[in-house]
């Protein structure tokens, strides 16, 4: 398995506060990874750096087979390279229908003139309906996404991510505010997705992480505290001290 994303020696500080401190992280082509850590450990900042929202003070972020640096690229270029991100709070376009939301996310040319001349075709429609099926929104396609329940919005966003066909999925607290059944469904979708691409899940909920059954990276004060299986990290004394033992 080759390395898809390599973050090395990255640091960033905001007004003197070191949000990320010499962080290094690697993930392979088709791998599931959970990142856990207490509040302020730098989980969200880590995602901001990978997606280009925040520029680090130092360090490298290397992507893909051609080893290109993501640091010089804009957010939209990084997304086009194949990095998809799901935010903590579901952010869908509430004034637009579920179909419009998904259609916008479908992998296609992104330039203004390509989009202006874009015509819906049968292939795109089939793909869109397939994704809607996966996230259980098949019968909601024509509804305004603002009318959806919280859990449905979460799924719509996951659906939009899948539609982008990213090579790396960054998912911030996917299970927040979901019922147990919805969590299970979310777990299934993520596990399925990780078979063909890299998935990084940031999560507070240990039960959810356990169910993902994957390698876990524990962040603390902006750097990696421990890495390994869930049983390995939960038995690590340092991890217990800073996070689990609270």
């Amino acid at each position: 398995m080759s390395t898809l994303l390599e973050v090395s020696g990255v640091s960033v500080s905001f007004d003197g506060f070191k949000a990320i401190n010499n962080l290094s992280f690697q993930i392979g082509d088709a791998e599931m990874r959970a990142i856990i850590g207490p509040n302020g450990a730098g989980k969200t900042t880590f995602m901001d750096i990978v997606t280009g929202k925040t520029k680090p003070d130092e360090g490298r972020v290397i992507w893909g087979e051609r080893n290109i640096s993501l640091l010089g690229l804009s957010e939209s270029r990084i997304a086009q390279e194949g990095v998809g991100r799901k935010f903590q709070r579901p952010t869908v376009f509430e004034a637009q229908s579920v179909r419009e939301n998904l259609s916008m996310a479908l992998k296609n040319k992104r330039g203004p003139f390509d989009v202006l001349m874009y015509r819906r075709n049968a292939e795109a429609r089939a793909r869109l309906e397939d994704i809607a099926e996966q996230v259980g929104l098949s019968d909601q396609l024509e509804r305004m996404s603002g009318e959806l329940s919280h859990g449905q919005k979460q799924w719509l966003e996951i659906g939009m991510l899948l539609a982008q066909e990213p090579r790396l999925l960054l998912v911030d607290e996917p299970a927040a505010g979901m019922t147990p059944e919805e969590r299970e469904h979310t777990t299934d979708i993520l596990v399925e997705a990780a078979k063909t691409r890299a998935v990084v899940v940031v999560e507070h909920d240990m039960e959810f992480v356990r169910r993902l059954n994957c390698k876990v990276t524990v962040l603390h004060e902006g750097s990696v505290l421990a890495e390994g299986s869930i049983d390995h990290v939960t038995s690590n004394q340092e991890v217990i001290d800073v996070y689990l033992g609270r």
Partner: protein
Amino acid sequence: MKQSFLIRNPHILVFMGLLAVFTIAVTLMSAYAGSDVISTSFVKTLGKTLCLCLIAIAMDLVWGYCGILSLGHFAFFGIGGYMVGMWLMYERTKEIVATSMAAEALPPTPEEVREGIGTQIFGVVGGAEIPWVWYFADFLSIQLALVVLVPGLLALIFGWLAFRSRVTGVYLSILTQAMTLALSLYLFQNDSGLRGNNGLSGLQNIPGLTDVGQDTISIWFFWASAVALALGYLMAVFFTQGKFGSVIRGIRDDEARVRFLGYNVEGYKLVVFTGTAVIAGIAGALYYPQAGIINPAEIAPIASIYLAVWVAIGGRGRIYGAVIGAAFVSLLSSWFTGGGAPDISLGVYTIQWTDWWLVLLGFSFVAVTLFAPKGIGGLFDLINPAHKGEKS
């Protein structure tokens, strides 16, 4: 495809129908058709109103759909007017100069004609030289191209600088105000080459058509304005439909999210900003020959603010809303300020609408913003409860 486009947008047919009926009715009631129900000057007012509706569509695209509150689009409107005005004034003056020189013994050389034109046009600002900006004033086709190119290029440069630096929201609005103010102040100077505060005048006279009366010319421009509005409407619907419309509405509602979907937000904004500037330029080029005169006061910052008010009152985020707002408010405005509305005597104080109209407009704007954010266009949702999409 064409058919489904119309079926998905029934308002296109309604709008085109109403516009056609309106155009025919005005034509039949005008002096052109031998009637005296509508005066020629009112035909011009109506034609100008159609041009204002067109720039309101541009404003709705850039603000109502893409979320860029530009308070500078009247600058592009004015530039369009200046570009066509230069040709009108130059050619007209050329005719006058040629006529007066025809009486002389020797036929005038081209240099003498140019000199005569220079003195005629620029004597008022103390010059006789024809400034370089008038270089193409003799060529209609080039000036017409400039109607599109100059506003487009200005918008492209301005937008590129502003969007690239991620200037958004109120800061961008202030920048656009600064742009139109700067342009207006520059044009006020006598050495700007566009006759300072005198502006360009006599634009209602079409060179080569001196035998054609204003009755006829006014109707021609009225028709041209109606056609331009119809095309603008169709184009706006085309732009706001489908995926492009989805993306720009997405930019309005959550710019960062659109970026993480892989869309180059700045590029889209630039396309919309520049495209609408071009529409504004065309609207201005049709407006000022009907107004007869253009001067730098036309592109003062307040003009662009009025534009935002029209669109807000009409209902932003729907094309017909912008048209309704511009037509309704601008016609009402000329009725109130033109002395059409009777003064209200309160005994100790008499409300004169020429003074109080702005206050009324201000209150209406606040009221619409607070109580009916969908504007007048929102009333159509009451008739058609199934209306969805195009929400603001």
